[in-house]
């Protein structure tokens, strides 16, 4: 059964189309990732699926309920961890959980047990009476996850869940998420622009400028690139690119002064390449394709590229969104 069904979902803010008619479905118990740069439409999609933003057109259902017409039913069945903290900083951790549990009508006699359970899960049991304003960013994020779980949602939405967290906390958090999937069969819908995080997902939708440009398992996405990726650095990257293209007929991409291309068998290709090349090369790297390469290949620009027009576009989108979304 599909827990999330999305059909031609669209959101426009005035002139700007933030989400351009996307369609996909998510299976029960799946970790489904939305991968894309800032401003690609990830948060807007989460806002629509979680009923916080009305779609301009198209339809979506979560846990069998329509996000536009059955909002309260959707709300009951989902947990949300927002990109920006949304805790009450003048209350304690336990009070934040208690208010949440009451808003979601968790039975009172159940609450105590679940509160202990989720606080142990995120390692905050001994800080339960601490005021939120004394918490670090990582602790707040963990508490938000605990809060998003206490009403036992069918689907957990995580919007950039590890943004701004240190690597250790990030690793911890992934442990929890994977455990939730295994032990509870919970469906998890997450957005990220970290490539290595996307690897945890069962399936990934690559989203760029409001459109889904690829959707598959991480392994299949990488396999679609063929064999290996070779990255080379040179003082004269343009000349290097030209030589590679004319000599081997490769599809060469440039990024930050390095050039990239794909080959079927990098180990065998590399020695011959270095012997034949006329342009001087400063460094060479041979590796298996990453999702970063996939993204670069599909969209033609890197996910965190500084100079791409995508960034300008993202900025104007954020401005427009801020004005109208409210």
């Amino acid at each position: 059964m599909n827990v999330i069904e999305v059909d031609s979902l669209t959101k426009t803010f005035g002139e700007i189309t933030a989400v351009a008619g996307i369609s996909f479905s998510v299976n029960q118990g799946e970790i489904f990732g939305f991968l894309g740069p800032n401003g690609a439409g990830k948060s807007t999609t989460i806002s629509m699926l979680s009923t916080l933003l009305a779609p301009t057109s198209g339809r979506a259902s979560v846990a069998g309920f329509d996000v536009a017409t059955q909002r309260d039913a959707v709300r009951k069945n989902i947990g949300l961890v927002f990109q920006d903290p949304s805790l009450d900083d003048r209350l304690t951790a336990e009070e934040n959980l208690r208010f949440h549990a009451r808003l979601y009508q968790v039975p009172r006699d159940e609450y105590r047990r679940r509160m202990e359970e989720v606080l142990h899960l995120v390692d905050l049991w001994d800080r339960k009476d601490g005021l939120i304003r004394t918490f670090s960013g990582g602790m707040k994020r963990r508490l938000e996850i605990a809060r998003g779980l206490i009403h036992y949602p069918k689907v957990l939405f995580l919007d950039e869940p590890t943004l701004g967290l240190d690597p250790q906390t990030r690793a911890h958090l992934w442990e929890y998420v994977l455990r939730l999937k295994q032990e509870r069969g919970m469906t998890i819908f997450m957005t990220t622009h970290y490539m290595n995080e996307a690897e945890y997902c069962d399936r990934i939708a690559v989203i760029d400028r409001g459109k889904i440009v690829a959707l598959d398992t991480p392994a299949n996405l990488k396999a679609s690139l063929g064999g290996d990726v070779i990255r080379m650095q040179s003082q004269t990257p343009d000349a290097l690119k030209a030589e590679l293209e004319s000599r081997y007929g490769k599809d060469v991409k440039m990024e930050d002064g390095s050039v990239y291309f794909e080959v079927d068998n990098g180990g065998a290709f590399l020695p011959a390449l270095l012997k034949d090349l006329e342009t001087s090369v400063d460094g060479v790297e041979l590796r298996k394709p990453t999702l970063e390469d996939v993204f670069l290949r599909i969209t033609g620009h890197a996910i965190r590229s500084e100079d791409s027009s995508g960034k300008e576009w993202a900025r104007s989108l954020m401005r427009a969104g801020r004005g109208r979304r409210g």
Partner: protein
Amino acid sequence: MGFLSAVAVITHREVLRYMRDRIRIATSFFQPIMFLLIFGGGLRNVMASRDFPVDYMQFIFPGIIALNVMGVAIFSSLSTVWDREFGFLKEILAAPVPRSAIALGKASGAAIIASAQAFLLLLLAPLVGIRFGFVQVLELSVFMVLLAFAVSGLGLVIASRMKSMESFGIVMQVLVFPMFYLSGSFFPLTDVPLWMTVVSRIDPLTYGVDAFRSILLGDDMSPAIAGAMIAHPLYINALCLLGISCVLLAAAVRGFRRY
């Protein structure tokens, strides 16, 4: 059941937050006491020498109570904008809770806080020579709650449309201060220009001040003085406040329903 418990949760949170904020509690007494001491102290003798029929300190005391109720209620309701900026509003709006419960919970929280604080201020009444009994306390609390609901309704209507706390100053300047000055706190509204009478009729604070004055001072006035100082019987004040509250809270619910 779900509706009332949601209202209770949001009310509870408002009250808890308020109690944690000691600076806010302390500073919200500052303005009313300042008005009482400066205006009351400054004008008391002048007014007495011009045959003003009531001790001026006593005259403005009900207005000071109303000012306190309004200040707390408007601040609590406008703090919704704060919640929006700092994210907590999202948590509430994403919850399976009717939007009307959110507005009503906010208003109830403001009403409880405002009344509690106004009662503390009431402890100063004996210092200006005002005495009151148990019946008056009951009557006062009814009007404090009504006034707080009306003012928070107004605050929530504004908050549901206000994007950032930057506009807070403007709201105070163009809405809250004029509401206070036109409410009859400093002078009786029985002998003022027509425009002022008209404007003061749509100011919820007018009915609160009038009710507080009639409850606290009415018994000691002769009928002639009361006729010049008190505009409406209590039940009219109550009905007007109730009407204004309903209209404003309904508008606030509409404002939140967009999310």
